[in-house]
């Protein structure tokens, strides 16, 4: 496994032998005595972790700038343009402002939980970076259950939101937390099920294998799963049209209403970084990751380009759509996304039975599968949107008699 991870291997070999040569460092004699062999190993590991996490956090900060600037354009206004050239230092200015704010804790708050919540919110976002293959041979670890890891670790944010909402003792925050628990857990189901089709096609849970299996991007092979993943993803990130958890016009800010200063900044950073992480996961699963049509552009650049394109789409959605009501959000998950994801699994499984030879597919087979799947998705979406409309739920309104 170590040999596949070129980035780590290079750093390790350099530290071990003091030579820039790439190959054959396992047989070479090290610079250091044998008792200190662990040192280059750990330094190489730490440097990689440091670089990746900092890059992602910096991108998260930069993304806040990009979002504000782009939404400014969408709304026919300018957006932040004062700090630095084109306002690019706005995240820095915000960071300084938030860091110097007084750390306020409400009297009725449960203090340990209140302080712990922003940390728990931020940790899963950082952890997912560990399994993302950013470029060819550029990843921290090729976990054999990477997909499962990424999905389950991001589900932890539910707990953070729940902790934040209930520990502050604010009623708006409590309403937000109640909504968060219901919504995030509901959307976890179709999101996980939508990835099953990819697992069937690749026969592996490793994200590196997933990227390598994409002879054609899985957005064509699994269009239904892609749609479900995008919708479920934006619901899990609390973005419009599913931002009922924060709902600034209803619950003002929802669960983080009582947070200020750096704790608030951590929530914001986690939220914005999670958009990037989600875009990265979508890139890996559906847009063939680091692979690109032109090889003269390095693979991490391809990855970043696709990731930022997905992030741009999320910003676009946020600037455009109004919000659904809570019960509509829930019925959409259970009555629309869930059956569609099951249909997707069913169809994909049959296709794998028919076309798969020892679990591998030729490019021609994949094109045929994508053709079938696109037709199935269109039919499925049309039928289930009609059912959603007829079935008590979406367009009819409920008034409770009191």
């Amino acid at each position, binding site marked *: 496994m170590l040999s596949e991870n070129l980035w780590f291997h290079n750093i390790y070999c350099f530290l071990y032998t003091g030579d820039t040569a790439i190959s054959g460092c396992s047989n070479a004699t090290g610079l250091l005595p044998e008792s200190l062999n662990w040192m280059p190993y750990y330094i190489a590991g730490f440097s990689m972790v440091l670089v990746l996490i900092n890059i992602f956090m910096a991108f998260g900060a930069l993304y806040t700038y990009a979002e504000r600037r782009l939404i400014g354009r969408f709304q026919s206004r300018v957006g932040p343009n004062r700090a630095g050239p084109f306002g690019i230092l706005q995240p820095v200015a915000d960071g300084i402002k938030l860091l110097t704010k007084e750390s306020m804790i409400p009297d009725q708050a449960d203090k340990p939980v209140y302080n712990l919540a922003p940390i728990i919110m931020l940790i899963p976002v950082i952890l997912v970076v560990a399994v993302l293959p950013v470029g060819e041979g550029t990843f921290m670890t090729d976990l054999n259950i990477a997909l499962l890891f990424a999905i389950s670790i991001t589900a932890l944010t539910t707990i953070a939101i729940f902790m934040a909402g209930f520990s502050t003792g604010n*009623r708006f925050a409590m309403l937000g937390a109640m909504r968060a628990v219901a919504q995030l857990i509901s959307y976890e189901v179709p999101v996980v099920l939508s990835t099953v089709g990819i697992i069937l096609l690749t026969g592996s849970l490793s994200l590196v294998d997933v990227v390598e299996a994409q002879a054609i991007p899985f957005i064509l092979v699994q269009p239904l799963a892609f749609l479900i993943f995008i919708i479920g993803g934006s619901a899990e990130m609390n973005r*419009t049209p599913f931002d009922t958890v924060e*709902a600034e*016009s*209803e619950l*003002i800010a929802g669960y983080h209403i009582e947070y200020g200063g750096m704790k608030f900044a951590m929530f914001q950073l986690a939220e914005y970084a999670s958009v990037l992480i989600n875009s990265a996961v979508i890139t890996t699963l559906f847009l063939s990751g680091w692979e690109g049509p032109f090889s003269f552009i390095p693979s991490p650049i391809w990855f970043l380009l696709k990731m930022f394109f997905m992030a741009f789409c999320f910003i676009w959605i946020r600037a455009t*759509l109004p919000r659904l009501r809570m019960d509509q959000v829930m019925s959409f998950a259970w009555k629309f996304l869930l059956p569609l994801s099951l249909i997707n699994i069913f169809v994909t499984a049959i296709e794998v039975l028919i076309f798969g030879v020892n679990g591998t597919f030729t490019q021609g087979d994949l094109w045929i599968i994508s053709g079938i799947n696109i037709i199935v998705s269109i039919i499925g979406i049309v039928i289930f949107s009609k059912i959603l409309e007829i079935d008590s739920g979406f*367009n009819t309104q409920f008034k409770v008699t009191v």
Partner: protein
Amino acid sequence: MNSELMTVNFGPQHPSTHGVFRLRITLDGETVVGLEPVFGYLHRGSEKLAEERTFTQVITLTDRMDYTSAMTNNQAYVLSCEKLMEVTPPVRAQYLRVISAELSRIASHLIGTGFLINDLGAFITPLMYCFRERERILELFEMLCGARITLTYMRVGGVFQDTPAEFWPALDSFLTDMEFHLDEYESLLTGNEILLSRTVGVSSITTDQALNASITGPILRATGFDWDLRTVDPYEVYNRVNFEVPTGENGDNYDRYLVRIKEMRQSLSIIKQCVEQIEPGKVRLDLPFLIRPDSGEAYGRVESPKGELGFYLISDGSISPYRCKVRPPSLINLTLLNEMIVGWKVADMIVTLGSLDFNMGEVDR
């Protein structure tokens, strides 16, 4: 399944209460089961202040009532003053008043529509779009009287001054652009699936309920009842222009939104007709600086963007009104708040508040 009831103070500092409105709501989970509106956070005692000022000075107070459509407030007040004094302003002044009042109506409805969609959760994109056009109306007002929000453009017996030369081309270009922008709003919003699923059927009231609760304006017309003071009791030059009174069907939030959009189109057509008909002339009667109406009383009313705005003026022959009672449409339109909101979800309550389009400056005065 019952859960413990929760009482939430909704406002006075809340982004969706359109000012400093406070609602004490009782929630069962997400459902509103009880509601009590609390007013008065913006109460400035305008009616008391009016008793200490001259008749002309009171116009500045009316600007600060419904600050999103100061023109119609001015119009209602000066109309009641003219009714009290039994004078009629010059025809050109009447045309200018109608043009500026209709511009004010468009500005107010733009704010109403924008904030309704904002309350629906569409970040603030539609609001910014609406403000983009409102900005041009404010620029037109600036040409007319130098102010943008608190206008004080109208005077007893006419208007403050004749239009400057640059006003008419600017108005023309605004009228052409606004048609296009209204189409733009409709293409973005009217058929939107989320907007439909959030507003159709929510908080609907019947015509009888609305009339019984003295509700007027777009909310009454959304129930399907054709009642617009501009047609049933035409004042100024409204009987010289042709326009329709748009009505809804169900009296729900969606119909209120649609009625406002359609009214903006009708306002544009009214302004166009006025621009064609208006002729040069005097814009103001030669009244004395300090007006002293004979003792008596008058109730003048206009169709403001929010509903019927009336001024009940009593004069005792002095330079200031003895009593200046305002009939605030925003306040009275909130009468059915309980019937509209109780039983719906919190999210629906926000949308209903947005669709009622009230203005706290006028509610509390």
